């Protein structure tokens, strides 16, 4: 077990309207088995002991699945490993390092306080069509429609998105296309999603634009930073879905 001393440059911003700034903190005795967020816990305990306001950041499950944690660490969403911040461990850093910690930066994700941002735009995009309209109780037997394993696996891969927003934070245009395309793809590939396929693509894309996310220019940064390895091929599929929907439907 190694311990390290670090310099942290952390974005502090009291609320959405206030102006923020990077503040410098020194922290010592950090053990390399700690997770990154446990290092932040230690910092916050120290700050509180001194009577200073702890740093606010989103986090919850701490096992890489809820999608709540969201820090830009040394310029990269979720830091140097392709994982969530909660699954990043201090063994990825070394004694004497200076670490920059900032919130997701995007017009559609306003800062609430310090490192916490508002990602409700993602929910509103889901409200615009990210579902199959099937009332409780009206489903047929689960094995009535066989779905080939390859298709089921592919749909599953798209469905593993955790909605963290790293794709938006990584993109120079703050585009949400990887997030939106993952849901559109999942349901477009499955037989259950066919009836609303066009409506869904049109509705979700329209809402995405309305929320102020940028356009996709195919740099691939989203895929490179996605902690769940959502493939950029979903975006190509979404573009086909959207085009097909626009050509064939009057909805929206």
């Amino acid at each position, binding site marked *: 077990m190694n311990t390290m001393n670090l310099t942290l440059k952390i974005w502090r911003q009291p609320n959405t309207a206030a102006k923020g700034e990077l503040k410098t903190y020194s922290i010592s005795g950090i053990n390399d*088995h700690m997770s990154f967020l446990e290092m932040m816990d*230690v910092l916050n305990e120290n700050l509180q002991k001194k009577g200073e306001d*702890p740093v606010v950041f989103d986090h919850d499950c*701490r096992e890489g699945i809820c999608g709540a944690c969201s820090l830009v660490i040394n310029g990269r969403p979720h830091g140097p490993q392709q994982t969530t911040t909660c699954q990043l461990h201090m063994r990825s850093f070394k004694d004497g390092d200076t670490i920059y910690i900032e919130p997701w930066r995007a017009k559609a994700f306003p800062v609430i306080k310090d490192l916490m941002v508002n990602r409700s735009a993602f*929910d509103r995009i889901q409200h615009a069509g990210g579902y199959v309209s099937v009332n*409780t*109780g009206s489903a047929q037997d*689960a094995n009535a429609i066989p779905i080939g394993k390859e298709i089921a696996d592919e749909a599953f891969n798209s469905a593993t998105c955790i909605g963290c927003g790293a794709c938006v934070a990584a993109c120079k245009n703050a585009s949400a296309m990887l997030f939106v395309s993952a849901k559109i793809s999942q349901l477009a590939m499955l037989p259950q999603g066919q009836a609303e396929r066009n409506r869904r693509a049109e509705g979700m894309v329209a809402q995405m634009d309305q929320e102020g996310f940028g356009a996709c220019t195919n740099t691939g940064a989203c895929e490179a930073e996605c902690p769940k390895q959502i493939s950029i091929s979903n975006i190509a599929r979404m573009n086909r879905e959207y085009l097909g929907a626009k050509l064939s439907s009057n909805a929206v």
Partner: protein
Amino acid sequence: MTLDSKIPSGQISEKWSNHKFGLKLVNPANKRKFDIIVVGSGLAGASAAASLAELGYNVKVFTFHDSPRRAHSIAAQGGINAAKNYQNDGDSTYRLFYDTVKGGDYRAREGNVYRLAQVSVDIIDQCVAQGVPFAREYGGLLSNRSFGGAQVSRTFYARGQTGQQLLLGAYSAMNRQIAAGKVKLYTRTEMLDLVVVDGKARGIITRNLITGAIESHAAHAVLLCTGGYGNVFYLSTNAMACNVTATWRAHKKGALFGNPCFTQIHPTCIPVSGDYQSKLTLMSESLRNDGRVWVPKAVGDNRLPTDIPEEERDYFLERKYPSFGNLVPRDVASRNAKSVCDEGRGVGATKLAVYLDFADAIRRDSEDVVRAKYGNLFDMYQQITGENPYKMPMRIYPAVHYTMGGLWVDFNLMTTVPGCYALGEANFSDHGANRLGASALMQGLADGYFVIPYTVGDYLAAIGQEKIGTDRPEFKEAEDAVRKRINGLLSMKGEKTVDELHRKLGLTMWDYCGMSRTEEGLKKAQGIIADIKKEFETNVKVLGANEEMNQSLEKALRLADFIELGALMVQDALDRNESCGGHFREEYQTPDGEALRDDENYAYVAAWEYKGDNQSEVLHKEALKFEYVKLTQRSYK
């Protein structure tokens, strides 16, 4: 107070259908005149909100998360049980019922458990129709795997992320109703009290976590779908924000708390590595399908696991339980891991771990096959520990995972406060003293999709459409009480941080009310918890103000309730002079160290009534009647 479980008489297979027929209905055109509050957006909350809105009720959903999709149901890994018998291996509704009652060590209601088994099959149908991508075979049909406590393959799964996929399904169904205007969603809003008017639950008091605004919300019924209370132990597999406040506040307003000491310690978690640890990570029970649990035969064997020859290893679960082997239920697996570590045969730096070894499975099936089944779990293990589980056996140790106890509810899922319901892990109902793997997802969705839509109508039809406004004095009083609690914490300016006190509480609970309990230890815990309560009430340090995002304040409000709950758990554990399931009192064990029940004196649900601050809670007993399953010493040998 007499506890009426409202379990109907008659054949067990007919109870639920007869009961449903007897329930009053609300006319379709009248449903829009009723408002229902749902607190929590996990599997139980999201499925209930969606289903009730589909029926036409006006639903308000509250979550302290930024999005309903963050609810901790998302983290369930292994799967969901259903008695589909797609594998032709002898499964049936009756067998799932039987396994669950037995797995719960005969401390659950037969009627509830049978209903759960009955609706399990509908859940799978519903989820598939929503587009949940369950694992499938090449022929396109659904795949199953087996789980602890069962000898059939009835678990449906989506790689190691079943909870995520099921929650996103329920979330999508709820999103559809949000778009339709039937569900109104309140995010980053935490319930801090239940409002009771004329003896009925009529609303809640909430705090907006961004602005600090304290607000009242009124409705005809309140559904608490707020999960379990494992974080009373500080370290658990629960998410950081999981808490007992919603149910505890309902308890203090008259809802009885059932079996608080029944907590589940999950056998396969990544061991604690240091005192900075903030949470524990589960490794799915499904790993026990292929992983073999062992420790060295000799005390103090410090060789690398790969250097220890086969004949010097003790595969203790396979040795003691040849017919279930590594797939014994969770309480049995956990206790055995503890006992080999107590003997000094634990492994790793802390000696509080056992091996979970995949070498045989990799030799038999290839690394690729193992990767396809468990890839994400292996990656997670490597991420956290820095070790490669394909090369070295995993090190695992039990950790607090689930709470079988919760608010006492009747067959309609109603608590002892009329109009206040508890669904999912928040209630005590279906798992007895030990929950089988892959049954939590089943119960959360059963309650939300297929039970509450029927039972809530019966109550609403009886109370009528009259709306109670938030201008009633009861709302004002409850708001004032919440403000007083908050001001008290912020003005204390003590020395101890919330986390310091929470850690102390957690360690006390783990040491004395954890995997094994004794009368002596529990009595000691009572004293320590009383001291922690006193220290919290006089010396806690909460910085900042109410009118801002203040995570320390949120944690302090939750800890206050955890401390009181901890005291009740200890009281319940002391009262139950027997061992059953996850409740292991060292004084009561069989000669070979298994839990020794006392059916004559303890075949009851312990339901505790709050009597006022600093007063002892009063125990009410609901006798458990077993008409179908014969009570026997649970055997997995």
